[in-house]
């Protein structure tokens, strides 16, 4: 491996590269899928001799712990770090330490503010807009929706909700209340149950990923599935419920939030380490928006359910850039 500082721009391409992954939360299947997918893609590169080692730092920890993770990766002499950050801002200083040692850093899932880092993420606002648009269309102008969000103050939550709220305002949809379900299915279910009891005339629920299944069960338990529209998610557990309810005319939408973002980032990292530059227009500041792979809706449901239906409930429908697609981001 090479730990001589050769900076982002002058990548000398002395393969094989060592790649580090820092993941500060393991209490979710999505993250597991992310790590597993990365390991698979890495194995291909490894077979080709492009990379030699993937150092995985993955544990439940806080910002301080993640700083320690990244410092450990730096001390391990990696060439690039792919990080799913626990904070949008609080890792900035340690990122500077990394780039100071000539390490390329890529943030996935959640963009960070540091300019030393290349964000390889989907556009969370866009992601939220798609389902909010759909829901607004379903309930129509003057319709009443309640919202089950993730964790207040969490950047992705704020970004998503900011975009969705705008959609609802523009469409003249009334947002009755916003509650937090901690991105947790059981909490989502309990919160929704409470909301249903106190808001008798709800037409729709907008929720984020991880909680749609709980929201569905709450609405179903209240026997109001026929009157309340739910914005769903592209996970097998929810899609199974969706599939069963389709017979009664239930409709929903699931926008893919791909764990495979890590794979896309790996492709980018190899390109950058090889010394290639991002093409103009593909990068906005320091953020590369990878496209949202696809959306599951009434028209595409059968196709995707056929592909993923045998996976476990926690499986998220996935997608990542191919190597060629990733290469198109570069000059």
């Amino acid at each position, binding site marked *: 491996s090479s730990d001589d500082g050769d900076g982002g721009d002058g990548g000398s391409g002395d393969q094989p590269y060592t790649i580090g992954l820092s993941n500060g939360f*393991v209490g979710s299947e999505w993250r597991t899928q992310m*790590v597993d997918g990365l390991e698979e893609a890495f194995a291909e590169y490894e077979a080709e001799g492009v990379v030699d080692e993937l150092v*995985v*730092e*993955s*544990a*439940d*920890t*806080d*910002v*301080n*712990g993640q*700083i*320690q*993770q990244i*410092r*450990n990766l*730096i*001390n*391990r*002499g990696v060439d690039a770090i792919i990080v799913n950050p*626990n*904070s*949008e*801002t*609080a*890792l*900035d*200083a*340690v990122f*500077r*330490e990394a780039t100071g*040692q000539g390490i390329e850093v890529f943030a996935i899932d959640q963009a960070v*503010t540091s300019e030393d880092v290349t964000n390889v993420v989907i556009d969370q606002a866009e992601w939220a807009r798609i389902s909010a648009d759909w829901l607004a269309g379903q309930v129509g102008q003057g319709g009443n929706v309640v919202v089950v969000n993730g964790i*207040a*103050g*969490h*950047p992705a939550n*704020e970004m998503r909700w900011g975009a969705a709220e705008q959609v609802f305002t523009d469409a003249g949809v009334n947002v009755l209340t916003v509650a937090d379900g901690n991105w947790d299915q059981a909490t989502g279910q309990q919160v929704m149950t409470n909301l249903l009891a106190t808001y008798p005339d709800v037409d729709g629920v907008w929720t984020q990923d991880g909680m749609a299944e709980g929201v569905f069960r709450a609405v179903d338990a209240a026997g109001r599935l026929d009157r309340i529209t739910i914005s769903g998610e592209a996970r097998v557990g929810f899609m199974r419920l969706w599939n069963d309810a389709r017979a009664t005319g239930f409709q929903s939408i699931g926008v893919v939030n791909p764990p495979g973002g890590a794979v896309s980032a790996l492709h980018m990292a190899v390109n950058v380490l090889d010394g290639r530059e991002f093409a103009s227009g593909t990068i906005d500041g320091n953020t590369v928006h990878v496209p949202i792979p696809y959306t599951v809706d009434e028209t595409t449901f059968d196709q995707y359910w056929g592909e993923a239906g045998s996976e476990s409930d926690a499986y998220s429908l996935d997608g990542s850039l191919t190597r060629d697609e990733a290469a198109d981001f570069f000059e």
Partner: protein
Amino acid sequence: MTGAAAGLVDRVRGVQLSGLATVAMLVVAVAVNSALQPNFWDSYALTSNFATFVPLVAIAVGQTIVVLSGGLDLSLGAQVTLASVVAVQVVDGSLDRFPLAVAAALGVGLACGALNGLVVALLRLQPIVATFATSFVFSGLALVVLPTPGGSVPFEITTAYRDSVLGVPVALLLIVALALVWLVLRRHRVLRHVYAVGGDADAAYASLVPVARTRVWAYVLGGLFAALSALAILANTGSGDPFVGNELTLASVAAVVIGGTALAGGRGGAGGSVLGAIVLALVTNIIFFADVPTDYRQLVNGAVIILALALAGIPALQKRRPSA
């Protein structure tokens, strides 16, 4: 055996032996870590390691004082968060305002500590649950002050924090400074009263110790060290985040116990907690550099921490018999 010798033996057995266990753990952790990590003693590795330790060390010192007084503060992490977001809003990237930010952070720590002191000492709520409740207040307020991550700490501060003076990391100096503050406090009447109240509140009360006031002081000191921890985090992270400190709480309790302080109060000291915090952080490093498979890392980490807790308790094992 003469009285003097007996006194010495008592002191060694009572206080220092638990300290010895902690020191032994630290030595082992450092040895293992430097064996597994070839560049452990390099300048970057040293500075970065110590920079990582400071926040936990500071909060552990604060927790120690509260624990010594017979309490427990589960809101310290939330206090760190609140103090850090207030400070980052005040400093707003300008070095000139840094002293003001320090004052603001300390002010927040003081106020939070006073609130905890109020509910625990004057309202006499049970500390574990009372501070659990106040932690909601503090972390909620942190979100009000800084709804989404942002704000920046002057570049000079984050740089200085990572620097070293004559080869000694600044962060190490900060840890030494924290230990010195503790040593000074120990010679103060308030800390003596903290020990007395934690050891036996009834006896202390009957002996003219202002029990309630002492308890309030313990929480206030805890809050002040939480504020110091917040400043270290800001220097470490370079910006504000409304969730940054919450997870430190439970780790601080573990550090205190590994440091040989009795959770029942009245016995121990912050010196051990400083070492305990460092041991905790080193364990994470060791498991990383030992290449434990990812799926088993958390398991090994948990097991090692329990082992450390058990080792820290060995001196207590010696006075086992209940009736003696």
